[in-house]
């Protein structure tokens, strides 16, 4: 075991590749182009979705619009899937990513995050009859999540005695709950209302809070000017309440105190 681990490490250590040509600072480029390219995944309602006229909508989309307006440039939304949000950023196909990216240390090694601009209240939910008050109550039970979300990593790390069942997106998760493939599930608080509206008979409710995840705007490494501008923009808009208002419109709840606090640091 140990030898193999060593070999793997040795084989991959320090392999670098000179890739992108040297660039001027991205913030000046954006201003010069009079256009900012923001990548967002439109399948993570209510952060990114389409409205009934098939226009991009959701809290991340609205925040992107506000940001572009304040920067005085045009907004170009780059359609992305969940797994290509970061590659789009790294290869310069998008300038920034606003797409419910939760800030974690491992991820921060690969991309830079702005200070938190929003958050995600993560909960365990289930039908009325089922009793679950803490992670311990999930022991031996099947818990559904959307794959690669923060709830997924959180439960995988903490609820080791539960069977975690992962679905590809929120709609599939919702279908799994509706069709009875799973009862308990980890999700963003705002999702419960959406799923309930489609399946009133399941009478879903939040059982307990897992954690509040702070969401950051993703920027390619090595763009200090852009990052600094984003940080001050986020703080200003947390202070003046505009970000909070957008969150409330789409999620039905206020931003968490720790997010708002970031605006005053």
């Amino acid at each position: 075991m140990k030898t193999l681990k060593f070999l793997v490490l040795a084989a991959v250590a320090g392999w670098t590749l000179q890739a992108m040509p040297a660039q001027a600072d991205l913030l000046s480029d954006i201003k010069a182009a009079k256009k900012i390219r923001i990548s967002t995944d439109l399948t993570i309602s209510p952060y990114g979705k389409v409205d009934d006229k098939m226009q991009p909508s959701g809290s991340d989309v609205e925040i992107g619009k506000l940001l572009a307006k304040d920067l005085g440039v045009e907004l170009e939304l780059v359609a992305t899937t969940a797994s290509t949000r970061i590659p789009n950023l790294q290869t310069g196909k998008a300038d920034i990513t606003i797409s419910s990216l939760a800030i974690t240390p491992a991820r921060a090694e690969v991309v830079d995050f702005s200070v938190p601009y929003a958050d995600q209240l993560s909960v365990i939910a289930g039908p009325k009859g089922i009793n679950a008050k803490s992670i311990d109550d999930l022991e031996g039970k099947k818990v559904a999540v959307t794959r690669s979300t923060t709830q997924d990593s959180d439960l995988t790390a903490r609820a080791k005695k539960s069977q975690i069942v992962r679905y590809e997106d929120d709609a599939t998760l919702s279908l799994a709950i509706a069709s009875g493939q799973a009862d308990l599930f980890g999700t963003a608080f705002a999702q419960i209302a959406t799923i309930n509206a489609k399946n009133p008979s399941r009478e879903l409710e939040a059982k307990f809070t897992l954690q509040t995840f702070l969401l950051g705007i993703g920027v390619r490494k090595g763009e200090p000017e852009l990052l600094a501008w984003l940080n001050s923009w986020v703080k200003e808009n947390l202070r003046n309440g505009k970000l909070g208002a957008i969150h409330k419109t789409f999620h039905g709840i206020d931003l968490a105190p720790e997010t708002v606090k970031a605006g005053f640091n």
Partner: protein
Amino acid sequence: MAYKFNFSFLADRWPAFLEGAWLTVQLTVTSIALGFLVGTICAVLRVYGNGLTRRIVGAYVEIIRNTPLLVQMFIVYFGIASLGVKLSAEVSAVIALVINAGAYTTEIMRAGIESISKTQLEAADCLGLSRFDTIVHVVLLPAMERVYPALSSQFVLLMLASSVTSQISAEELTAVANVIQSDTYRSFEVYLIVAALYISLSFVYRFLFTLTGMILFVRRRKLGTAL
């Protein structure tokens, strides 16, 4: 700006990759075996069956071949669940893959069966072979030999296509890769590893198919003549 490849996450995560690849192997080997069985039976029914069975098999093949595997998978997994029968993701995945592989096998085997010359059947008749013996020994094995390359290609494709089972929560290779990618944001590295694993798997499958072919079709090997 230089992108620095960093595979250090492999130190912790390589068992997960292997587990994912192992589930991919289990899902696909089961589905290939059962799918081949279903497909061969359907192909025989399609060629030698009566009007009704021909039509049913024909409809089955057309519906499956002309719609995406993902949708078939959804209907098996969620459709059956809403009838009250709860199957695990793996079982549902195998059922959907078998239905899918069966349809492609039917079509390929049908072409093989139809390519068997009528004189072979007449000769079998003269030898007094039963209908069943004729179909198994005179028709199926030579038919399979003729379409064997197409068949093995299709099964390798099935192995690659099995990645969509991740959508209904089967934790196979692609699913594992997506989770690791999202935890570490090392997309390029993860994609390269996954590509290497799928290519290795496909080489192993091809090797095994060639080996099986050599064992099954002894006649060809001995005589060294093409059909």
